[in-house]
């Protein structure tokens, strides 16, 4: 029977390095994906995910299982991501508005992983690519806290209680935040939503 996250963390606290490797294996992909969707840069997302694991390791001596492990883990990740997004925004402000728009290299990563084998022809490939870009851009345009809430709710499937602890707000405030975020996405993606509903 697989050990729970909390048990693994308690074992890490007791000096078991192998348990840390198991936690790393269990959460490397969810963390990197969450951070990637927050900062939109693969390299930066991996750097931040490394930092999250390092902080977890450093805090092992003081770990007390007072909350779910995922709540703690994604709280660290969210704080790092929000700080990084804010730092990036200030950096972007310094870049000239006249700078040419370049294609995001990360689009290539997503395509290479997912589309190449599924799409039977180039036209369908392009349509799916355009849909993905619309979805991604709609999520990117959300205010960062709303974006974090949607990513934690939709992709990490955390419950309201956990997300509210991660974002340090009340559950009712979180529900309101999520509703506004999904409403914005519904409006932004109206053509796709309508097509999906048919």
């Amino acid at each position, binding site marked *: 029977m697989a050990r729970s996250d909390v048990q693994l963390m308690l074992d890490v606290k007791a000096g078991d390095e192998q348990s*840390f*490797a198991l936690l*790393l*294996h269990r959460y*490397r*992909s969810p963390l*990197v*994906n969450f951070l*990637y*969707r927050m900062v939109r840069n*693969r390299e930066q997302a*991996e750097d931040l*995910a*490394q930092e999250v*694991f*390092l902080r977890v*390791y*450093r805090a092992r*001596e003081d770990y007390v299982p007072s909350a779910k492990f995922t709540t703690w883990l994604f709280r660290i990740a969210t704080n790092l991501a929000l700080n990084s997004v804010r730092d990036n925004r200030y950096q972007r402000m310094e870049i000239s508005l006249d700078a040419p728009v370049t294609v995001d290299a990360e689009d290539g*990563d*997503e395509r290479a*992983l*997912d*589309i190449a084998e599924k799409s039977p022809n180039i036209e369908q490939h392009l349509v*799916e690519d355009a*849909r*993905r870009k619309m*979805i*991604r851009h709609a*999520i990117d345009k959300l205010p960062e806290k709303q974006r974090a809430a949607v990513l934690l709710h*939709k*992709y990490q499937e955390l*419950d*309201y209680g956990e997300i509210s602890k991660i974002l340090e707000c009340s559950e009712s405030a979180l*529900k*309101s935040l*999520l*509703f506004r975020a*999904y409403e914005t*996405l*519904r409006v932004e*993606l109206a053509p*796709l*939503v*309508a097509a*999906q*509903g048919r």
Partner: protein
Amino acid sequence: MSCSRMEGKILGFVDGRLKEGERLEMEKHLLACGACQLRVNEFRSLNVLLDELPMIEPSGAFDIRVRARVAAEPAKQSWWAWMTPSPRAALAASMLLLATVWIGSQKLDNSLSAGDIDNINQNLPVLENFDVISDFGPLSDLPQPVQPDEPGDPNQSQQL
């Protein structure tokens, strides 16, 4: 349930996280309200649409980097760790203790014997008698110092 009240429940309804009573109330409202029914359907479509966003895989070097950074972390010591004796410190402390005991035993060996103490006790009244000590009469019995009248006389030094 009014449409404005429904807004707060719509996500929970789509997620399937409403309590049984709330869910039944919502379903009852949706049967009577086309606008809210449409909205719920759009939220469900949006939910499916968001699933299209692909996942990425961490790079092959990710685990290696994390492990390297963890391995580079210094071993954490608690604040009372200094109390735990190291082998060198323990050896030094033992040597010091042995040396102290040995020096202590040497002092005991050099202590006065019972005979010495008796002798001192016998002489003590004389030493304590100040009159005897301050009486310089016995010193007058000492021979007078020889004056160097004849510095060249070799017998003088022999007499001395």
